[in-house]
């Protein structure tokens, strides 16, 4: 499948099985970024870089962009490791929409459902322990929960959908 810029109209429609859309491409109009990329770490780095450029071009500061990059990385890492179990080369679909200065996110994949069909609560760890007992993992969902609002996980057919809002620095809602 042909990749690159500019896109043909038929490539902009996300329909059917996500695996059909192999290769990274994106659309960028004034207020929306849409990326579809393979579920691997190198492609994720590219998607994060494109996301940061998009936000910088909209005038967001590094202080505002930092948490966005972190949340996207954590959410997609979870998809790569758990939904796609590191074995299957699936595709990840990320949309970032800026509406009235608010950042709305939608992340989709065609992998396994989340355990219990719900997004993890992401409890904080108790760090009051011996050095050897310090946790080395399990921070991802905690960070996502800390930095997002209105997080919703839904599954329709084979597709997982995670939606959330990242409030801008200085805003508490």
């Amino acid at each position: 499948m042909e990749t690159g810029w500019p896109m043909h109209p038929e490539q902009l429609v996300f329909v059917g099985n996500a695996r059909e859309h192999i290769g990274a491409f994106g659309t960028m109009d004034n207020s929306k970024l849409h990326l579809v990329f393979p579920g691997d770490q190198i492609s994720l780095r590219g998607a994060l870089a494109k996301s940061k450029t998009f936000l910088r071009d909209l005038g967001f500061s590094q202080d505002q962009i930092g948490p966005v990059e972190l949340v996207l990385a954590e959410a997609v890492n979870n998809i790569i490791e758990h939904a796609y179990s590191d074995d299957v080369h699936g595709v990840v679909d990320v949309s970032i929409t800026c509406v009235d200065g608010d950042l709305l996110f939608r992340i989709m994949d065609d992998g396994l459902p989340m355990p219990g069909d719900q997004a993890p609560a992401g409890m904080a760890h108790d760090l009051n322990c011996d050095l050897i007992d310090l946790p080395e993992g399990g921070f991802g969902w905690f960070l996502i929960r800390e930095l997002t609002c209105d997080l919703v996980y839904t599954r329709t057919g084979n597709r997982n959908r995670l939606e959330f809002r990242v409030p801008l620095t200085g805003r508490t809602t």
Partner: protein
Amino acid sequence: MELTLNDTGDVRVITVADNRIDAAVAIQFKDKMRELTESGPARILLDMTNVDFLDSSGLGAVVAVMKQVGVDRSFELAGLTASVQKVFSLTRMDTVFTIHTDVQAAIGNGLANAS
């Protein structure tokens, strides 16, 4: 994952040359750090000045390194950028690690004698 090493006096300063410690490189980081800290000075300082992104995988790897260094030696961090510091403070890992503003603050005039 590129790490450079500089022993000054009784401190081993390990500088992360990469600007990301993320899921893509966390395991390599952990493995290379294990090699670089297996022996040498009892005080180890990780210079993270170049690192502008650390995710939970990267944090986990840094924790793993501290555990591997153990209780009889010290493992400290220096030069955390704002985004990286935020990950440590959100997870409260900043209460577990000794974090210096920069390498200079950590080892004082030791740098002047670096070879």
